[in-house]
């Protein structure tokens, strides 16, 4: 499998990464190199092996349902570009 230039541009758009044609072209080369590696790996016979969702074969640890975080709004908002009335302000978004 390999990606077309068109697909590379679409992925960049979905990730909100601005790419020039030259960058898209070189990225296409890098990505397709990775796909070749994957193709090599796919030659390994994995019949009967359960797919893993994580590289480590462990189960998720859980925490008890208790509030452990105090309000630190002032500290967090001190590093925010703009705030008002306790809200973070961002460029206007309307669907």
């Amino acid at each position, binding site marked *: 499998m390999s990606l077309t230039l068109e697909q590379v541009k679409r992925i960049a758009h*979905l990730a909100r990464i601005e790419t020039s044609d030259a960058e898209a072209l070189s990225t296409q080369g890098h990505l397709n190199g990775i796909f070749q590696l994957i193709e090599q790996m796919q030659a390994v016979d994995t019949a009967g092996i359960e797919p893993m969702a994580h590289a*480590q074969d462990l189960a998720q640890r859980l925490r008890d*349902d208790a509030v452990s*975080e105090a309000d630190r709004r002032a500290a967090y908002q001190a590093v925010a570009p703009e705030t008002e009335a306790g809200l973070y302000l961002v460029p206007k978004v309307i669907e």
Partner: protein
Amino acid sequence: MNQWEVVIGIETHAQLATVSKIFSGASTAFGAEPNTQACAVDLALPGVLPVLNRKAVDCAIRFGLAIGADVAPKSVFARKNYFYPDLPKGYQISQMDLPVVVGGSLTLQVGSGDKAYEKVVRLTRAHLEEDAGKSLHEDFHGKSGIDLNRAGTPLLEIVSEPDMRSSDEAVAYAKVLHGLVRWIGICDGNMQEGSFRCDANVSVRPKGQVEFGTRREIKNLNSFRFLKEAIDFEVQWQINEIEEGRKIQQATVLFDPDSGETRMMRSKEDAHDYRYFPDPDLLPLVIGAEWVARVKGELPELPGQKRERFMTGLGLSAYDAGTLTASQEIAAYFEATVAVAGANNAKPCANWVMVDLAARLNKEGKEIAEAPVSAPQLGGLIQRIADNTISNNIAKKVFEALWNGEGATADEVIDKQGLKQITDSGAIEALVDEVLAANAANVAEFKAGKEKAFNALVGQVMKAAKGKANPQQVNDLLKQKLAG
């Protein structure tokens, strides 16, 4: 007309009843000052890691067991990637390929009276995920304000199969689901606060066609009324489009309660490439058989089971049994009433709870838990109707007195206010004779064939008895005398 079939599937987001968030220790309490309950994990500051809340998993297991679904021994969290300012990480942690709950079904009663029918709606899945924050678009000098208190709140997204065929079925489904999540204590069901919100996937197809039509998804319906209105509008809109020769485009729409219309929010083509992949920050969620068994042991009797028992054990109709199992509170009140009045009085108990008590509560905007008349008091009252101490009419007076705190028990009120029914046939006969003598005109009318005159005479006797004469005895005696 009528050649179109409506197909509806519903996705519901139920906010789980935890005190802390699904992946952080920040509070989930409603109504706090903006961003005072958004911690480093919720804000997606660098270097933070999510740690899963055990109670949220517990809620998912409870739900799975309550709908007869499979609880997955192993489920996986995935990242759903999209960009929006109220989603600081740039992805929502959700579940995709391996959700925690698979399958199950809900049984609904649709309609009432002669047209009532039962319907089984299959569920596809239910999965755990986190909620996003809230965007406020009022004018902040041309900017939007972001409150991340809600970010990371645990949700159970419950997905039905496209099994519903009308807005009435959709509403019945939403109501049963709403009742169930409250019943098993996993969600407070508060729709105004957004704890329970529905998305409806709606399509139409010519009757008899096997393939589904193209669907549009109506987002974020937070009341049963809006759910019905939005679907009804959407169905009519889609039918008009098709009949005028246009094709339906798959899209997400919003319902505007003011205009009663749905309008397009975004076309699905570009926006819905979420590029899901397993979240490397979270290991698979493993739920052992002993955990499931423990939760099963903690489950209360479910509404469906209780309903069945009310029908077979107490002889109630499907409608009554359904109404009385709409919530744990109503069911508990009814059962406590029957415990006093006796199982053979289950039907009058049902009527009193569903009609008289409900109307009185409604009038004062009270919940059943706040009813001034307790279940044992009502049970005692119903006993006195059953043993003919008082008539139904007088019982309403006693109920009112109990409501106003004019006595601790029905017996006390009956005694104090002298409401005991007159059943001594000699005493009633005397009253009947008096009335017949004083109302010769009515008697003559009745004998001339006017049925109404009989009722007038009954009324006169009851009036003379101050409402306390046993109505059946009055009827019988009057008939006897008039025939004689």
